[in-house]
């Protein structure tokens, strides 16, 4: 009887504590993706991510994310399994681990305006991301491939108003769980919402990575404007330079998208990407046009896509089906992405 009373008191105390902390239920979400890609030269010419395997029904990844908030504190833990989330984005660790952490961070909102976040997070730089759910096109841009994927670090965010907020943080080298030359990067993001439907992110990230020949600095503009109910326009422009003539890149991509219905959309990505020559080498530029459809049925999205790339300097050494070099490449892909 005594034990029963104690248990009742303990249960009530726990329930009261939970209520006082305003805990939200545990959120579970994620995605799975699979694709077929066919390069018309019968060899995988286009080296951007993630539709990389030729003439094969291939898999992307299964992505599982957990989120929980208790009062002002929250965490996000997101793991992915499969080529897209593992060796195609970040190499497996020395222990040959067979998964990849997409997000692993804790957050504390000191006030409605100020919060601190620490851990390993999706990068704040760029338009496209690793997760296939948040990208319109299935294959990715050159800008995405060249920029950071994730940044571990600690960052503070302050919301000045509905229209302006600022994030400043200290970060590890790009895409690593551990920084071997100390917390070496500083970054910031200014978010501006000039009018309803238009958001612009001005990003900067600078630091000296372990083993690098100089300090790398990236300036990035990522913006999207919902022009009408059906038409959305996105833009990504970036410049990355490493001091001591160690190269970098410059590029811009435009993303017009038109929704015929809530379930059927068509989007184009036009990209110019210039690789800065290191050590006195000349630059190399590439242009790319990708046309993708998004057909949604519940949680499932089909993404049929055609892509044409032009590499004038033959930097990527595209080849024809007979093996001879060519300046252009084209591919078709059909992807299926399920988000839950």
């Amino acid at each position, binding site marked *: 009887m005594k034990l029963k009373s104690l248990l009742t008191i303990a249960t009530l105390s726990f329930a009261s504590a939970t209520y006082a902390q305003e805990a939200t*239920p*545990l*959120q*579970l*979400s994620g995605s799975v993706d699979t694709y077929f890609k066919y390069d018309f030269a019968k060899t995988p010419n286009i080296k951007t991510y993630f539709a990389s395997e030729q003439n094969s029904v291939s898999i992307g990844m299964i992505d599982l*994310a957990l*989120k929980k908030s208790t009062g002002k504190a929250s965490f*996000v833990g*997101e793991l992915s399994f499969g080529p897209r989330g593992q060796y195609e984005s970040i190499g497996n660790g020395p222990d040959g681990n067979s998964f990849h952490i*997409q*997000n692993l*961070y804790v957050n504390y909102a000191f006030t409605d305006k100020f919060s601190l976040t620490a851990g390993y*997070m*999706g*990068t*704040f730089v760029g338009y496209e*991301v690793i*997760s296939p*759910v*948040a990208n319109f096109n299935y294959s990715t841009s050159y800008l995405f491939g060249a920029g950071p994927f994730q940044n571990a670090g600690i960052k503070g965010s302050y919301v000045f108003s509905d229209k302006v907020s600022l994030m400043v943080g200290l970060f590890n080298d790009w895409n690593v769980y551990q920084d071997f030359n100390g917390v070496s990067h500083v970054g910031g993001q200014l978010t501006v919402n000039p009018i*309803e*439907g238009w958001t612009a992110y001005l990003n900067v990230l600078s630091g000296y990575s372990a083993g690098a020949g100089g300090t790398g600095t990236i300036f990035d503009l990522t913006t999207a404007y*919902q022009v*009408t*109910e059906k038409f*959305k326009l996105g833009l990504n422009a970036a410049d990355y330079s490493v001091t001591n003539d160690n190269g970098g890149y410059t590029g811009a991509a435009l993303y017009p998208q038109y929704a015929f*219905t*809530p*379930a059927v959309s068509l989007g184009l990505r036009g990209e110019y990407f210039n690789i800065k020559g290191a050590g006195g080498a000349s630059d190399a530029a590439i242009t790319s046009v990708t046309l993708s459809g998004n*057909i*949604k*049925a*519940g949680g499932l999205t089909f993404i049929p896509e055609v892509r044409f790339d032009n590499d004038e300097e033959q930097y990527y050494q595209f080849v024809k089906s007979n093996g001879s070099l060519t300046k252009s490449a084209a591919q078709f892909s059909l992807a299926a992405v399920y*988000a839950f």
Partner: protein
Amino acid sequence: MISLAGVGQDQSLSYDERGKFIHYEVVEQSGVSKVNLSARANRFFKQKAKLLKMTSKVADTIMQAEGKFIINKTALVLNRPSGEVKYNFYIECRDDKYRFWLTDFVFIPYQRDRYGNFVASTTVGTPLENEPGKLNAAEWKGYINNTGKEAEILTAQFKESMADKQEIKPATKSRETISTKKW
């Protein structure tokens, strides 16, 4: 204002004469003046300031606020937001009675962002009356039903507030102190 029950729908929303979904009620409040009812409505909006934003007075007697419901997918102890439904909340007060209606429902789907948080994927919503097509009909029906349920919950709270049923706050017991001066 005319409202018609939606045929074949199991949610509480009806259609108005514009063909828009509406939650419409007229409430008798005998012995309460128009001024008092307006004050109570204002108090409700202040209490729900995080959910309802007063936008304007459409006319001398009509108040308007914008609000949103978060639509969640729930399975056992787990859940995640699918999107939000924005709406307009109108109230008109007269002596001894008031009427209110929620309408102009638009759905904005959520999408997981790069940090694993669910955020609005667009700023322009789709009117809830729009036909979603066969592929998304089941999900869309779920959004309509959830909106109807959320509207029921919100309007029940609103009517309770308008009836001036104040919550009785538990009295805080003053802390007992020991005087060290008298001994």
